[in-house]
């Protein structure tokens, strides 16, 4: 694995290799000593041009548990606000001697551009690019779903996952639609038509404007965060109307299958896309997602930087 830019085109085999590696890393580090020596001497930079404390902390924890050194760069208060470009920033940081860049950037395609432009030689992990993709989020979501449906350990077919909310602007939705469908799951995206991209019929997913008609069939429901500025841009008339039509209310929660789980990439808007009842219910796996994020990112960094093989993880790509 040279870079992790996208889940589009990722085969189920390589996705399961990452998930298997993550599971093995979780097993090994499930004790008082959470740290492995595998990436000692390697340096990873978290290059964040957008605020995202949770994703940054998750990558930082993952790198540190593998004993890598971590440099954090955030756009705020940096030279970026003085107009330094992504190219110059990345080259400057690479000159300090790094092995991998974890990039969060508001521009769609920034990670691909950084990886393919020849600006730097380091490996690139996409930690969210604009409204394009967020592959490690999809991988941790797949990891979480897998852990709740042991009968589908090698194949997600038969599982039905709903992704509900602002599909248009969601990198999480794109990455999950590609990854989960490639693993075999049926994916249904639920949103008002204003928040569904043009041309979405070519995505590997079903579409619905009616949450109530699909909620009872789902094995997992993934609620997307709704940004308040979407309302001022007239994507929907009011928060109240959005919550009524697309929020995971207690009532909708009760219509879900017994085995179904509730997911959210965070941070949540309680009372808007998700009710407190749903967020705090027994079905909610939202905190598990956070925990799984660390092991999945450990697996990605491990496979990228080619640490020593770990038992049970199979051939390292």
């Amino acid at each position, binding site marked *: 694995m040279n870079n992790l830019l996208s889940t589009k085109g990722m085969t189920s085999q390589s996705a399961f290799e990452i998930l298997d590696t993550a599971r093995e890393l979780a097993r090994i580090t499930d004790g008082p000593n959470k740290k492995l020596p595998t990436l000692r001497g390697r340096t990873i930079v978290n290059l964040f041009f957008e605020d995202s404390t949770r994703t940054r902390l998750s990558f930082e924890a993952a790198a540190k548990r593998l004993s890598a050194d971590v440099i954090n760069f955030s756009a705020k208060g940096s030279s970026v606000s003085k107009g330094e*470009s*992504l190219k110059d920033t990345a080259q400057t940081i690479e000159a300090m001697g790094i092995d991998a860049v974890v990039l969060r950037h508001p*521009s*769609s395609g*920034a990670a691909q551009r950084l990886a393919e432009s020849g600006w730097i030689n380091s490996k690139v992990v996409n930690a969210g690019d*604009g409204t394009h*993709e967020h592959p490690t989020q999809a991988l941790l979501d797949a990891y979480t779903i897998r852990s709740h449906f042991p009968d589908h350990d090698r194949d997600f077919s038969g599982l039905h996952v709903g992704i509900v909310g602002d599909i248009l602007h969601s990198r999480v939705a794109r990455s999950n639609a590609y990854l989960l469908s490639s693993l075999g799951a049926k994916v249904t995206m639920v949103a008002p038509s204003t928040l569904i991209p043009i*041309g979405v019929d070519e995505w590997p997913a079903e579409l619905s404007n009616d949450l109530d008609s699909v909620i009872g069939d789902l094995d997992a429901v993934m609620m997307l965060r709704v940004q308040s500025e979407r309302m001022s841009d007239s994507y929907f008339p009011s928060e109240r109307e959005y919550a009524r039509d697309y929020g995971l209310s207690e009532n909708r929660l009760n219509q879900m299958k017994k085995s179904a789980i509730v997911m959210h990439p965070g941070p949540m808007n309680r009372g808007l896309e998700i009710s407190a009842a749903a967020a705090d219910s027994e079905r909610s796996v939202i905190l598990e997602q956070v925990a799984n994020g660390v092991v999945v990112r450990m697996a990605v960094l491990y496979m990228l930087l080619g640490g020593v093989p770990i038992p049970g993880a199979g051939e390292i790509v």
Partner: protein
Amino acid sequence: MKNLTLKSARLADGTVVDLKIVQGIITEISSNIKSDGDEVDLAKNLLLPGLVDLHTHLREPGKENSETVLTGSKAAVRGGYTALSAMANTSPVADSAGVVEQVQRLGKLAGLCDVFPIGAVTVGLHGEQLAELSAMAHSAANVRIFSDDGKCVSDPLLMRRALEYVKSFGGVIAQHAQEPLLTKNAQMNEGVISGKLGLTGWPAVAETSIIARDILLADQVKSRLHICHLSTRGGVEIVRWAKSQGMSVTAEVTPHHLMLTDDLVESYDPVYKVNPPLRTLDDVQALREGLADGTIDIVATDHAPHADEDKDCEWSAAAFGMIGLETALSVTATAMISTKMMDWNSLAVRMSTKPAHIGGYANHGVIAVGAHANLTAIDTEARWKVNRDESLSKSRNTPFHGQELVGKVMDTFFNGVHVLAHGSLTGNKYE
């Protein structure tokens, strides 16, 4: 100035002739003219009237690091052009007699082709208040085309006024059709690809709605409207309808919109970032058909040079635009003639005669006794590979780098001066 004889020129109708040029004017066209001065053997290359571009960004004044009037003129001559129309979005904006006269003067100084300034429609291109159109029209630059290109004159009342106002001096408004409220933050064509890439889409209706509105406005006030760089099937169909109704509208298409599609954006390489955006194959087909049947009157380059730092970056930070002067003829030939949709004669009309007519450039667009010797000779069989590093433009942002094209400009004559020979600048200029 010595007399010049051009030997063995093949005209678009297939006849091979010689031409005598005296003091920059064609004085004789016949077989076997005896030369009495300089002689250039055109070796049966196709001789066309010098190409005329109605849509060029020369960047001077203001952005001389990406292009100057001189470097743009060099690129133009290499591309077979003898007349350019310099768009108004310079810094300062060409919205006053002073700026358009300066641009015209720089063109004369370069001496390689005519540089006709286009005046801004509104002050500073802000779309709020009409610029002094009459002052520009009556200046030494003699401006006839007015455009806020890069920005749309979106206010319908202001657009109406502009259309009415230019009637008194025979002007034309060249509209960049883009409804700004429908294209807030837009990055590429809205469609399957934009959805996948997570880039804000640029819907076709943002173009078609303005085209429809302006055609109706121009008809209402009986003025002349020119639609810049059509990019959508819907736009072509509206213009076709307007012409069938006898309305006074002309339209242009760029070579890149005749050739490239939005799937190229999947690379996220900003060399493909352009305004209007690359569209779908269906749009490309409609544009080719529209150009072939005359719905689209002319090819215009929208030559838009940008310095490396404005393209060697992530997509959303990059500038819109592509250079095109040096490749326009070959790209058009590859798109239209290799596909047998058009012949060389029609190409000459679309790239020279008609644009000269729209702009009122009397010294361009015809090969005839008594006409100015603004000419270009094409090796129609040549195949060549575009190499951006050989560009005469100051900028390198061509989307055709590495692509093989058909038809190559060999010679260009500007007012009888041999400015390009065998594809290279001669160093001669018209004084």
